[in-house]
Structures are given as C-alpha cells and as structure tokens.
C-alpha cells in the first residue's frame, strides 16, 4: 500500500467509527460539542501514533504469550503521560474530557491497531497508520460534535446562532446514538458510490 494510502484509508475505507465501529464509548460520550469531539480525537491520535511506533519497534522481541500485557502497559504509559501533560498545560480541556482520557487505555482502536497493524509492519508504516486512523477518528468525532452542537445548543465551535437552548436531547445520550446512527447511514450510502 502506498504511503499516502496508509493515511487516507483511515478517512474512508477503514474509518474507525463508521466502518470499523470501534471506540464507541468516547465517540458517544464526548461529542457533545464540536470542540470536545476535536479535542478527544486529538488526544486519542497522540496515544495512537506513539503506541503504534513503540509497539512496531518492540514487537519482534516480545514473546508471543505476553504480547497483550506488554502492549497494554505501553499504551497505558502513553495515556498517563498525556493525562499529566494535559493537567499541567491545558487544565480546562482536561476537565471537560475528564474520565475519558484515562479510558483511552481501553479504547479498542488503540489496541486494535497495535494488534492488527503495528505488530506486523515497519515503524514508518505504523506511524503513518496511526496518523491516518487518528485523523479519521478526529474528523469523525468532530463531525458528530458539530451536528450535535448545532442541533442541541444552536452553536458551532461555541459560536451561538440562536438565542436560548436547542433541542436538548442532542447534547444528551439519546442524541448521541441518533446522530451516530444517521451519520453512519449517510456515510455508508455515500461511501458505496
């Protein structure tokens, strides 16, 4: 696969949310606004790229029977690093995303890419795969966030275009499921063309 293909497949063919349907927990929980979705996507991308690089480096020497624990320790380390960095330098962002930052450890996308891609490919390709999937995840979360913010709060990236509240269900859990479902339909219909 070409280098460019490694990056672009995360957007369409292997879109983590709409096609692989991985990482649903942060997708549903943190996309209450466009900004939250974007931040969550970027945080996941950070962990994804670094863990992909390290895992592709160490996978040849890791014994088969302990490879999952080793991968998880690596991923957990990067998540904790991210958590400390966010607490120190962007405390507001950390506060909004809160619990969902430590939960990146159990995000299926990260371990899934480690298992399915990074452990079998070169360091460079693994990094590109991390970037591609990361961008796909970030963009998807942002799009869901934009739709939910427009419908639920009547604003885009915090810029309000109606007075008062929107359709509040969309900033709550039911709206997350509805928007995800209908966007998935739309995505797959368009992707089939």
């Amino acid at each position, binding site marked *: 696969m070409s280098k460019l293909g490694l990056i672009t497949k995360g957007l369409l063919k292997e879109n983590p949310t709409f096609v692989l349907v991985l990482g649903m927990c942060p997708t549903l929980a943190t996309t209450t606004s466009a900004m939250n979705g974007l931040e969550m996507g970027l945080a996941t991308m950070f962990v994804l790229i670094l863990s992909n690089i390290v895992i592709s480096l160490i996978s040849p020497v890791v*014994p*088969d029977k*302990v490879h999952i624990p080793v991968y998880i320790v690596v991923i957990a380390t990067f998540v*904790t690093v991210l958590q400390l960095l966010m607490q*120190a330098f962007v405390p507001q962002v950390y506060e909004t995303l809160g619990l969902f930052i430590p939960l990146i450890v159990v995000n299926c996308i990260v371990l899934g890419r480690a298992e399915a891609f990074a*452990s079998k490919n070169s360091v460079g390709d693994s990094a590109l795969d991390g970037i591609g999937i990361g961008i796909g995840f970030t963009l998807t979360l942002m799009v869901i966030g934009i739709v939910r913010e427009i419908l639920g709060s009547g604003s885009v990236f915090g810029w309000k275009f109606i007075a008062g509240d929107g359709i*509040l269900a969309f900033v709550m859990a039911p709206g997350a499921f509805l928007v995800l479902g209908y966007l998935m339909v739309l995505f797959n219909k368009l992707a089939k063309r």
Partner: protein
Amino acid sequence: MAAVSNLKNMVLSLTLVCLVCSAVLGGVFAVTSAPIKAAEVAKTNASIARVLPAFDSEPVRESISVDGTDYAYYRVPGAGYAVISTVSGFGGPLSLMVGIQEDGMICNTVVLSHSETPGLGAKCQTDASFIDQFKGWDPASKRLAVTKDGGDVDAITASTITSRAYSAAIANAYSVYLIIAGNE
C-alpha cells in the same frame, strides 16, 4: 516474527517494559508536577476572584465544622471569605462557592459542580437573571428562600427544587460565615 515464549524471556520482557515505562512516567511526573499544582491554584484563585471583590493577598484555605458538616473556605484578607457549600439538588450534589464580603454582604456565587437536568436546573450555571440577583445580596434584610416558600429569591422557571437548593447552599455558607466572623 514474535519470539518463542519461555519463562525466562517472558519475565525478562515484562520486567523490562515495566521498568522503562515507570522511568518514563517518573520523568514526566517530575516535569509536570509543578505546572499541575500551579494550574490547580490558578483555578481556585479564578473562582475566588469571581466571587469576591479584587484582592492582592494570597487566599488561605481553612476548614470549619458547623452542625457536624465540614465546610472548606478561603480567607482572603482585605476582601472577605469564599465559602464552599454543598447541598443536595434535584439530580445530585450541588456545590457552590459563595463569596461573602467582610461587611456580611454576598458578593457573588459560582457553581463548582452540579448534576442538574439540562435545560432546567442546569440553568443555575448560565441563567444570568437568576445568578445576578445574588450579587450584593444582604442576608440580614432579604430572606434566602424562593418566593414560593416566602423568601426573596426568584426561582428559575420550572426548576423550583434547584433554585431552593441554590438558596439553601448560600444560606448555609452565610451561617458558616457568621460563625467564622463571630470567632474572630
């Protein structure tokens, strides 16, 4: 591609990975612990600055037990007291920081955390006409209870329970203030 597992290399690789990871975490923690503390202090000070008039002294955190409940508060010399008061709201605990000036007037209030219903009780954080009525409130002459209960607080539309809890939190903070001020 992966090495064949035996006890020796499994123990060895796990130990090694854990050691390296701990070292990395230790390093990052050492670098970030000072900024994290600074960020926490800045956050508290920002809340205090919102509820009290401008001050140039360093707020001192203290705590006091009133009727079996522990209240944390910040003493800000020259400005007043910022009392943290938590009551039970409609959907769960409702935590406020209440700024009380040295003359006993309420300067401002800010919601620290809440779990009220979006669109109803959650407006206690955004509804300016509700929040602003407490600015410059004199608890000695105006009752901290919603008008429905014979007080002077105008409740948020359709959220009497949250408004009641908000008023009660301020009233609690004020009684804490009276004890602090009386002790001095």
